[in-house]
Structure formats: C-alpha cells, structure tokens
C-alpha cells in the first residue's frame, strides 16, 4: 500500500541505477547506486560538478546511453498520467514505447541550442515536426500549433520568424525555439541539461524566468541538471546533490541550500565568490570538507525531516540521526 502511494506522487522513481563505460583501462562507473524520485508537477534539480554523473543520469531516463556506455543495473519507473507506467530500463531498443517516450511523454533541452537544432530546416519545420511525429493532425494544424508555441516562448513576429533558419536567431532565441520544440507535445517530464550554461547572464535570467513561468502554467514535471547553485535556488523545489556518480544529499531547496548536511554541499556553496568577503581567500571544496570522507559510498539515510544524506556513521550522529 505504502509503495503504491509513493508511486502515485512521483512521475519518475530511479532505483539503484548503475552505468558503466568501457575504457582502455577497464570498466569505469559513471553512475552507481543512484536512487531518487522526481515528484509530479515540481522542479527537481540535480546539481554537481563535471564527472558527477548528472548528465549520464539524465541520458538514462531518455535511454540515450550508447556504447561504450551501458546501464548495468537498476530501474527507472515512469508513471505518466496519459498511459500505463513502466520501467524504462527494461524496455528493449525496439519497443514502440521508447518512441512515445522521446518527444511526446518526455523531452529534453540541451546545453548548446545550435547542436539541438538542424541547420538545414526552418524553425517552424522543426517545431511542427515534433507534433507531426506524435499527433494525428494535418500539416496546417501542426504549423498553427507551432506558431502558438513559439509565441508562448516569447518569439516576436512569429509569422515571419517561423520561416527562418536557426543561424538567423541569437543564442537566447535559439534556446527559446528548443524549449518550444520540447514543450509542444506537452510532455509530462521535461529534462533540462544545463540549458543556460552557454548563455550570457542576462539571457540566462530571461530563459530561467521563461522556464519557471511555463512550468507554473503547464504544471509539468521538470528535471533540471546544472552545476550552478544560483540557478538551483531560483528554480528548484527539490535538490539532488551528486558527486562522482553517487547521490550525496537530497532535500527541499531550502533544506539543502540554507542548511546543507553534507560537507561537500557546504563546500560547493562556500566556493561561490559572491558569498565570501572581498579580500578574503575563497573557500575551496577541500578546505571546507577537511578530512570528511568523500570516497566511501555510504548509503543514503532517511532523516527525520524527510531529507536524505550519505554520511559516515560519525557525521550522521552529528547531523542528528539517532
């Protein structure tokens, strides 16, 4: 009964996910024992540095891991409202449900808008194509929906712009087009992988505002991958902190950013220049973490206030776990 209740609240439940990459020196884990859930209708941020496994985790959800990478164990239970749920990991590569998953039930916004768009098709063509792939509508209807969606993401003069090619758009405008493509089929889960990292800070602020406003309007679930805690603070309801392929801490945005339990999370926050006093040396991860153990994969422990953290038994007691 309890299991059932949790499944209903979450659009996605990742359990014990492990991904290996075959390299010259043997198998390397990109992700191991990763478990977290994405609550429905909320924004979940996965935050971590390069090599933390945050993008690999996102790619697993869309089944985009390709050789030499391989999902070796774990499950990703997807519970859409429009259709029956299933474990994404267990689908075969030819399963028709994968086609529905990619672009219809879920969609993804990538870091670099130019590589996500084809240079040889007009933007209207590319947004309409997403609809024509997944909906039984005429071409004219698809184009009309494309016009509506592009207007909604803030493209001015859409009737003219829709016939233009991606190179005629600025970086910020291209990212708006990619967001329109991603949202036009009204996905239940939108995955954003560093969508504002390549943009200027002013354009980033505009795109973050757009994603936040659209999420509140459409009430879809968002998984937001980023390395920037400022972006996390502005957008997320729930935060998952990853480090070297493992989850270190999960909690609400206020719990994790205002009162981090894990020394690594404290280090990430302290290393942001704005928080240090001018003229003082910046804290680095190692100066904050000290001799706390980051290498041993301690299990995620459920704390009293609903948050989870992976700490050594000593630190766990200090954090108030009985």
């Amino acid at each position: 009964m309890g299991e059932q209740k949790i499944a209903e609240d979450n659009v996605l439940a990742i359990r014990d996910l492990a991904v290996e990459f075959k390299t010259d020196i043997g198998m390397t884990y990109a992700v191991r024992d990763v478990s977290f859930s994405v609550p429905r209708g909320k924004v979940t941020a996965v935050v971590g540095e390069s090599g933390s496994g945050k993008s690999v985790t996102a790619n697993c959800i869309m089944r985009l891991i390709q050789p030499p990478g391989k999902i070796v164990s774990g499950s990703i239970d997807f519970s859409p409202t429009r259709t029956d749920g299933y474990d994404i990991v267990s689908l075969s590569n030819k399963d028709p449900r994968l086609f529905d998953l990619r672009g219809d039930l879920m969609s993804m916004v990538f870091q670099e808008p130019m590589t996500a768009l084809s240079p040889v098709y007009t933007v209207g063509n590319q947004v309409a194509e997403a609809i024509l792939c997944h909906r039984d509508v005429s071409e004219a209807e698809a184009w009309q929906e494309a016009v509506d969606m592009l207007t909604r993401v803030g493209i001015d003069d859409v009737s003219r712009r829709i016939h233009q090619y991606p190179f005629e758009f600025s970086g910020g405008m291209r990212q708006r087009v990619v967001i329109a493509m991603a949202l036009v089929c009204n996905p239940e889960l939108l995955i954003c992988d560093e969508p504002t990292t390549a943009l200027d800070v002013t354009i980033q602020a505009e795109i973050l505002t757009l994603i936040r406003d659209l999420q509140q309007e459409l009430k879809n679930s968002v998984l937001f991958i980023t390395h920037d805690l400022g972006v996390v603070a502005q957008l997320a309801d729930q935060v998952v902190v990853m480090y070297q392929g493992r989850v270190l801490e999960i909690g609400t945005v206020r719990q994790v950013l205002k009162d981090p339990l894990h020394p690594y999370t404290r280090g990430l926050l302290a290393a942001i220049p704005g928080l240090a006093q001018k003229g003082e040396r910046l804290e680095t991860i190692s100066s904050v973490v000290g001799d706390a153990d980051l290498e041993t994969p301690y299990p995620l422990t459920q704390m009293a206030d609903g948050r989870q953290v992976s700490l050594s038994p000593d630190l766990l007691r200090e954090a108030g776990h009985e």
Partner: protein
Amino acid sequence: MSETLLEVNGLSKSFDGVVAVDDVSFSLNSSETLGIVGESGSGKTTLARCVLRAIDPDAGTVRFHGKHGQYDLHNLSERELIPLRQEMQMVFQDPFSSLNPRMTVQEIMEEPLIIHGIGDRASRREAVLDILSRVQLEQDALTRYPHAFSGGQRQRIGIARALVLRPKLVVCDESVSALDVSVQAQIINLLEDLQDELGLTYLFVAHNLSVVHHICDRILVMYHGRVVEEGPVEEVFNNPQQDYTKLLLSAIPSPDPDVPLVPIDRANLNL
C-alpha cells in the same frame, strides 16, 4: 600609491564596418586588477587584444610603462614590440585548446624563454622549476603532456607559461570561466597569491560578475563597444549609476532561495 602601468586613450576597432570597440579610454596602475565586464559581443575581448596589439586598433593610443621607459604600443613595429611582449602576457579561457597537445609541460613552459633568448639550458630549467612550484604543480608534471592533466591543472600550466617571463601585465581573458566552481575557487586564490608575490597587474576580462567582484579593484562595464560605467568595484556593485549595470547585476541568480530573480526588463533600458 602606485605608478601608472598602462594608459589607453580613445581606442577603437571595427571589423568590416561593425564597431567592436568604440572610443574606450582607461588607465591601469601597477599591482592593480581591472575587470572588464559585459555580455557576448560587448567588445571586451577585442579591447583586451587591442591593448596587447594582438590585433591592431583602428584608432587610439596605448601607452605602456615598461622596465626600460615608456612606449606607445600603437606606434611600434612588430619587431620593436617583441622585447615588450616579455612584460605583457595572456592567460586564455580554454585550458584545452590553449596548450599544444604535442609538447610536454617542460617544452610549453620553456618555449617563451627560448623565443626571447633568455638564459641557457640550466637557468631556463631553474626558471621553469621555480614557476612550477609557484603554481603548485609537482616536478613530475614536466615530462607529461597536457592530456594527462585535469582542466584546473591545465589552467595552472597556462598561468605558469604566462608568468615564466616575469611579466608586469597579465591579461586574463575569461581565465576561470571554463572551470568547475571548486576548481575556479582554487585558481582565483592562486591568481591572487601570485599577484602578491610577483607584483602582477591584471586586466581581467570576464562575464561572471561574482568572480569580478571578488578579484578586481576597479571595473569597466562595456555595452556595444562602449564603456557605460567605470569605478571601484564596491561602488559599482553597491551603487550602480547606469541602468545597464543595474540590469547586469540583477541578472545574477542568487544561491539564496529567498532572494528571487527579478525579470529582465530591457524595454526601460536607457542607452
């Protein structure tokens, strides 16, 4: 308190009729860090390159106070510039593309000394070892190639290469932008330590305003090739005078969830 190192006056540069830098003037004191901030296309990198004569400006003057007197960089020939290049060095953004993958770290760091005909084999080795320890790399790094290093370590190699000639002026063009936040903090601390030890003057080009706030004494805010605001960093951050500076500052997402992001309003921008 300290003497002027660089005076830039009326510097302008266009590319095929597109104005990149438009009548920019500033001066830079010894041991000072001046930040140049702005969005992509604001002309900050072009300005930095014009100052070093990496590209030739269309108009304006750049006066550099070198070890052996004052020089008007804009008037010098390429040949006359060569000895001055020892005193002005650059650290680049991308720690991957800015190091030659076919050279060992020893070769990368020694090359500037060889080009400028400084010292013999033994004294060059000594200079390389000295700078290597200053950027906190181990001696066994010398025989390895750039691919064997992480992004942060490569940036240390890039900094060492710039400093081996003992320059007075170092231009850092987005030198910490490509790094993870924890590595970025280490490199910022390193740049500040080296400035104290070696009396360096930095021209620090960046789009990340929190980094600029931390490391710079004064800043120039650029927009469409022009300087829209200039001043001591605390003054500009605490009391920005221009609408564009206010907009730029308000766009930084705070890591405090209780400080909401203000939507960008370009319509009321008075430029």
